[in-house]
């Protein structure tokens, strides 16, 4: 059982080493001439020089809208977990299972349509 997971372990080791080696290489070969602008925190789409308090304190309260997206994501994540065994056993199951999965997906599309209709997929 376990010998087939050697490649997964190897993948995990490489994944852990990859960023470490990349950062170490950059640290070794880069010239070190820091100044104020280079040392500020960088985040895409934000200029921290304009918002000094944002650079110092990143423990800010998030908007509730992120949470709605996360919850909708959980629903569809669970849907994928059910799709996976269905797809693997598809040849053995036949038309009946196809109809059943269509019903399953249709019920969840109702949920998505409701969220869409209520305007929750728009960023306010």
């Amino acid at each position, binding site marked *: 059982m376990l010998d087939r*997971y050697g490649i997964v372990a190897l993948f995990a080791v490489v994944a852990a080493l990859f960023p470490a080696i990349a950062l170490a290489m950059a640290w070794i070969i880069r010239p070190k001439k820091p100044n104020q602008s280079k040392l500020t925190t960088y985040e895409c789409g934000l200029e921290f020089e304009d918002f000094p308090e944002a650079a110092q304190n990143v423990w800010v309260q998030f908007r509730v809208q992120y949470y709605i997206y996360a919850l909708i994501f959980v*629903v569809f994540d669970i849907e994928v977990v059910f799709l996976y065994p269905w797809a693997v056993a598809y040849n053995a199951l036949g038309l009946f299972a196809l109809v059943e999965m269509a019903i399953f997906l249709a019920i969840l599309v109702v949920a998505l349509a409701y969220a869409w209709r209520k305007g929750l997929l728009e960023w*306010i």
Partner: protein
Amino acid sequence: MDLIVFYLFATLAVIAALGVVALRNPVHAALCLAVVFISLAALYVLLSAPFVAAAQVMIYAGAILILFVFVIMLLSPGVDQGAGALKWQRPLAAVFGLALAVELILVLASAVLPAARGQYTPERLAQIGDVQAIGALLFTDFLLPFEITSLLLLVAMVGVIVLAKKRVRS
């Protein structure tokens, strides 16, 4: 070999679980929880249940943990706001924790946990494939629970939308 891997991930899971309880920063505790979930996934692989392991990583480490982190970021910006302990919290926690430990030890000492259930032995599952077995059972014997799951998810999502909508607008 199996035993070495089991002890490796079991130790990792216990240490990370201690981290979840002991770390003061809630975000760090949530990251420790991710380590617990992934260690449990490795233990499921050892138990010849690769589908459960994959579902564990996808649902728990992927989705549930994101919810936890979002709740933390929504509710408590800042590290350890230091809301004082509830009255009697420590003695009560000790009593209930001890009771749970005694109960677990009693159950695990007396219970018989069979690896095989009915016709599904580990050897047969390795032969037909565990995901195929789950898929075949899901669409025959457990068809109704499967369909009800989708209704449950629908209700959960509508509930979220109704509850959250007021706050988004305001």
